[in-house]
């Protein structure tokens, strides 16, 4: 049971109010028609599965219904930060 800081509600809430929507920062190609099948397949199906720092997209489903991003350690389950859509993470695997 994660304890998640919703950047929109500005407080911690219990995990059961949220849904994880998978890897964050997957931008839809601006010109899908220009993508090869391989490129489109990459966008559709291929996801990172890192050991350690991972950026995920979540929604505060039972709360404000807003999406946001989370930087999470997949080993310890520590949540390093949550941040709004359009913002960049301050914690990355490189940092």
């Amino acid at each position: 049971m994660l304890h998640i800081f919703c950047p929109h509600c500005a407080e911690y809430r219990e995990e059961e109010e949220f849904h994880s929507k998978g890897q964050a920062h997957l931008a839809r190609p601006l010109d899908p028609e220009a993508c090869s099948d391989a490129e489109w397949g990459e966008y559709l199906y291929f996801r990172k599965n890192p050991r350690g720092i991972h950026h995920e997209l979540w929604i505060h489903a039972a709360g404000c219904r807003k999406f946001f991003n989370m930087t999470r350690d997949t080993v310890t389950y520590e949540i390093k930060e949550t941040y709004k859509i359009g913002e960049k993470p301050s914690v990355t695997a490189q940092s």
Partner: protein
Amino acid sequence: MSQDNRLKSGGRIDRSKPLYFVFNNVSYTGYQGDTLASALLANGVDIVGRSFKYSRPRGIVTAGSDEPNAVIQLGSSEATQTPNVRATQQELFEGLVASSTNGWPNVNVDAMGLVGKIGGKMMPPGFYYKTFMFPQSLWETYETFIRKAAGLGRSSYENDVDTYDKINQFCDVLVVGAGPAGLAAALTAARGGARVIIADEQSEFGGSLLDSKQIIDGKPAAEWVSEVVSELATFADVLLLPRSTVNGYHDQNFLTIHQRCTNHFGDQAPANQVRERMHRVRAKRVILATGAQERPLVFGNNDLPGCMTSTAISTYINRYGVAPGKNLVVMTTNDYGYQAAIDWHDAGREVSAVVDTRANVQGRCVDEMQARGIRIISGSAITEVHGSKRVKAVTIAPINADGSAVAGPAAKWKVDTVASSGGWSPAVHLSCHTGSRPVWKEDIIGFVPGPTVQEQLTAGGINGCYETGAVLKQGIDAGLTALQELGLNEVTVAVPSAEDLSRTPAMPLFLVPHKKPTSRAPKQFVDYQNDVTAAGIELSCREGFQSIEHVKRYTALGFGTDQGKLGNINGMAIAANFQNKTIPETGTTVFRPNYTPITFGAIAGRDVGSLFDPKRYTAMQPWHIAHGAKFEDVGQWKRPWYFPKAGESMHDALNRECKATRESVGILDASTLGKIDIQGKDAREFLGRVYTNAWAKLAVGKCRYGLMCGEDGMVFDDGVTSCLAENHFLMTTTTGGAARVLEWLEIYHQTEWPELEVYFTSVTDHWSTMTISGPNSRALLAELTDCDLSNDSFGFMDWKAATVAGVPARIFRISFTGELSYEINVQANYGLHVWEQLFAKGEKYNLTPYGTETMHILRAEKGFIIVGQDTDGSIHPHDLGMSWAVADNKPFSYIGKRGMAREDCVRPDRKQLVGLKTTDPLVVIPEGSQGVFDPNTPIPMPMVGHVTSSYWSENLGHSIAMAFVKGGLSKMGEKVYYPQADGTVIEAEICSPVFLDPKGDRQNV
């Protein structure tokens, strides 16, 4: 029966309140304040169960939650049966009825003994893997037998009559354990203004202090405890939870506490009270003050009733006034073990000797023994005990300095009770739950909590700190640290004075040597509950299981409901020693939630019976019930399935509903459809991006059907969207897809196209929706509305605002049946009113309510798909023959466009949705049947697609079906075959799925 082992005085029991109870069909008496275990010992009950594998008689070993043997079945009636209760934790109450979990059919006369004794040799570790797996056909026979013999307890065959629930708690500091460390920590935190929860598994707070003769601040320890508890109770923000086991420690300081609220009242529990409550706690800081558990020593026949841990002896004497035997011998590796001898002697009973495995015994222990005239036999050990159902004698022999071998001649002593102490194992279980590995501390010969990412503090025994004064100080320090870290008030708390005894070093000894090698010595039990012996562990090492995790799984060490609380450390050390490794090299297995078994009731809470899953209802539900609807679950909705009249079968009802709708008028409650209000100047653009068809030119007042696809091009929802005004739309979704679609719109709006000016609002529950369908629907509606319903002014796929039965409404002329239809939407507070008014006017038209099943048949007659039934996430619009609903000339690359252009999506032999007419018109193909082109090819036949929808059509007088067939759209008129499980083959012809009115005349009248 008299309580022979009850001491004349002492203990925290109330001797004025005798309690009667039954154990294994025999009546006994105990006192208020007893546990079932202390009452059994008081009555001289030696055998409380039989062992799991060898069926050996077993007695009570401990006085706490670490008890491996006294695991009993509780309950005076079938409905109140509770398995896996530790007798050492179950408070006695009047009328308690319990029986042994193990020992079918009887603990004293033992049918399994035969297996046990023969099997004793036959059942080495891995026995189940090696023996019972083959032949596989017999496994079920074995399983029944093993499970019964294994004695894991049983659940009730009746519904549990008790109530269990859950409660969410938030606090600054959760203190786990209310011994000296926990109480000191909680008091400190409370004085600093923290919101505190302190939980302890025992019925009273105090922990080890309740069993001891310690003086704190010049008072008996129990008095200090009661003062602290009284002060804690004065704080509004302190929650005291006795009888509450902190069972799980999860991520980010989320912990579960299993509180036993009325278990100690038994059948006398007050009405309306919850029996057990699960607290779901989010704590800013957790202070683990869980103490330590004493390791018993491992020696020959150490499982005979009468062998106990030395602290258990002290607890039974001091807390319950019970001395569980006549003459005691103590074996210890450390100074703490002597306390049992002191307490036993001071209770007026005979201590034969203290056998100390250390060669040189010095200090206080020696003085205490001399003062009482108790003999110390140093440098020696009890290598074996003798007896059949109770200890009768022990063999004592000198051992060498490192405890690896017997070093001299043995002597046999007659005693009936053996206390053993192998030192303390800190109770690190909870700290392991979050993935933290405990670390070995050589100086205390035990594991302590390892590094963790949780906001966790520890105090007292869990750190390997065992002297009361030092423990109290650690508790206070933990409380102060929590206050400081949380930015709460600073307080000064004086450390209570307590005499700390000087101790001499303990000897690490995990297996007492025997003159015979381990493999031939009498069984030396490591894990009582799973009958794991030292020889078994060594054998598993010899067989190549080197990792402690493998040893654990091969021997079942620590797999019992006690999770090996007593045996794990000894077992690991034995494995390490055998492999010539150190304990840190060998490592340890970790503990997982739950700390002690909990009832299913506590896990389920109130989510049972009618509250198990929400049932969602429309505003018309009372009418549906009153008119005998049968219901179907659609997600959480309860939707009318069909409305049988008296004596009607389902088939009859469906035929009647279908005919009535096509011939006159039927009505469907469609309120469950998802509805989304969409506003903004970019609403139309947004619709164009999420639907496959065109929306740019949809005029105000018009409705349009749309298919929604994922980025992979596969259909995931459909529905009609209406243009209410230029920048204002109402989207409908499938019943099951409502929440998913809204989230889909939001994710694209929030993450991809925030620049589009559009807002979405769910109005699913706001509107009641009723569809009247059939040739007489216009006449019926005309009786209730002022709206001009003529085809010229209100055509197919138009919508209008009007009043229906006096209620403002939106009427949509859309059809899912192919008939002239009107979908009437009114604010749900008036839904039932309008529905009833339709029936008031509907009698002359034979207005017939129908449910989801008739809806399915009517739409299948028209070849309309149901997403989720005729699609499965791998189907794009062209597969459905719905290319008409795809507009690839839209400027924006709508969701799904690129996906359905992928190489695989344009294959000509994809499975495509077609209609089927069976050669025998009376045969209805079972849905899910797989088709083949040639039924005479050998098995396995190449399958070409399955039947998605299949019904009897009373209107058409023959069966109809929709199915996927490879390349089906270009195989019209060809045959396809559906072999059935019974060997028959159903023949069908591929046809258009539009079986009725292909030109759509009926809906356009």
